[in-house]
């Protein structure tokens, strides 16, 4: 992001880092409220799923940026659907 700015790039990634922390704090609170018990391997699965989802979004939009709109849509469509299915399965595993 902001490849031609020596200032905005680092600021962007610092903000993203802060969002990651806030997101997981919020997620932990949400899971606790819903009385979903978590342990280390469940957290590992959740974090892995989140990273994969992030990669799918970045990947699709990278292809958009390359002017490969169709490839980007297919990428988001195929891997996004896959992530949604895995996400539902993961939620059911967590709530089991």
């Amino acid at each position: 992001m902001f490849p031609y700015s020596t200032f905005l790039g680092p600021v962007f990634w610092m903000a993203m880092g802060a969002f990651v922390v806030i997101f997981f704090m919020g997620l932990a609170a949400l899971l606790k409220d819903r009385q979903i018990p978590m342990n280390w391997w469940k957290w590992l699965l959740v974090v892995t799923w989140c990273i994969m989802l992030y990669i799918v979004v970045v990947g699709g939009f990278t292809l958009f940026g390359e002017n490969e709109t169709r490839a980007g849509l297919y990428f988001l469509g195929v891997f996004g659907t896959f992530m949604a299915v895995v996400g539902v399965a993961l939620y059911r595993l967590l709530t089991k």
Partner: protein
Amino acid sequence: MKKKDKGIDRRNFIKLAGMASGGLLLGGAAGAGFSAGSSKDSYTGWGRTAYGKDQFFNRKSFEVDHPTYEQIGITRRIEYVEDLFKRNGEMRRLMFAGAGQAPQWRFEQGIESLPEPLKSYYEAHPGALEEFEKSLLMARKQREDWPKYRNKYLLADAYSNAHASPIMGQGAFPPAPQGPPEESDFRGVKTAVLKLKSPEHGSKLIKMITHTFGASLVGIAAVKSDWVYQGFLRGVGKTDFEVPVHWKNAIVFAVPHEWDSMYANPTYGNSYDAYSRLRFIAGKLEVFVKEIGYAARSHVPPTSYEIAMPPLAIDAGLGEQGRHGVIITPELGANTRLAAITTNMPLEPDKPIDVGIKKFCDKCKICAEECPSGAISFSDKPETVIRGYKRWSIDQDKCYTVWNSVATSHSRGCRVCIAVCPYSRKNNWLHNIAREVDPRDPTGLVASGLLAMQKKFFKYPGGQEYLPPPDGSNQTYLDAPDWLKTEEWFDL
């Protein structure tokens, strides 16, 4: 109830902020991805070149003792008429003599009345003469049709001609050699030679200098006589010659075409942007090598070579040959244009590499499917044996006919195979994962997965569509950049 009166509590605030952050993270991911895709910094060869940072792929673990081309018979040097441009040049000289002079040959006279070595060549390749005749007819039609397309492609044509200007005519750089190599290659060499610490030092120095001159990739190869043309020597003319003993090593270097215009081939791309850069690099490197006391000779595009570049570059470890006959390098893919300097400077040659490109090309076939001329083979493995080497080989005459068919002002190339090649991709995180993971996967599953995605996800117009109507619709692989679209800047 009291809590509700106060508004949102701390716990709900954290949950809400967490959800909002999740949304912002996805938005940031989309923005970062789009930026990575559209960033011009990820166009290899047009930014960090001078510092050698374009050659970012670590070849060390892929070095092999023998290159991936296959020698299966008796090898020989390349007759100069086997090169399409030299052959067609000879034919044009025979057929289109100067004003007031009668042509020395016409098609009606047949192959048997051609002078050697053309006669032998066309007897061995009977379809080639027919294709040459077709290319001349198409060239005439191309000239006649150009007024229809001139305005649409005004900027692309001007851009190409501007890049071609330092290549053509008397002012071309580097100057053409004069006299035999034993004289011309030593002309200007400084005599007080300092002792080089080692060939390894020589290679390292030369690579750094070549990068600063603008080369994206640099490699060193020992000159193999099989790659040296026979029958024509610049500075001397038509002659059979032994490979000069001072052509010990070759410094091979590469630059890419400007990427946005390259993806918009055939009509918006051009060859001369890379050619002119290569010629400047070669000319300066030739002078540099002579200044430090060694003989040097430039071999530069489009046709000023005594050595075939792709096999030399393969020997130098820059890449592997693709199905389309063009070298594919890990950094630039097929968007790799080559030049070289031959020298007697002691240099340590690089080793060839095997990063799985040859195997990938066996399966891929996208270039063959997209080639408007049908010049690229669809076979599962290389079948042709050329001068003792089993390798991919294109029908260069068919390819040239398409040069004369697309909607350009003259036959200035097609390059669709370069644009559509899955290896011709940017230097960003997405494609770097493919670059780094695929060659390290012994199962081939990654390559198969990437190829499936390439074929299903990406849009390809299809071979004929690159041609003008009625055969096609002047499609380009990707949309042209705004700076080459006439309609963006001029009233049409």
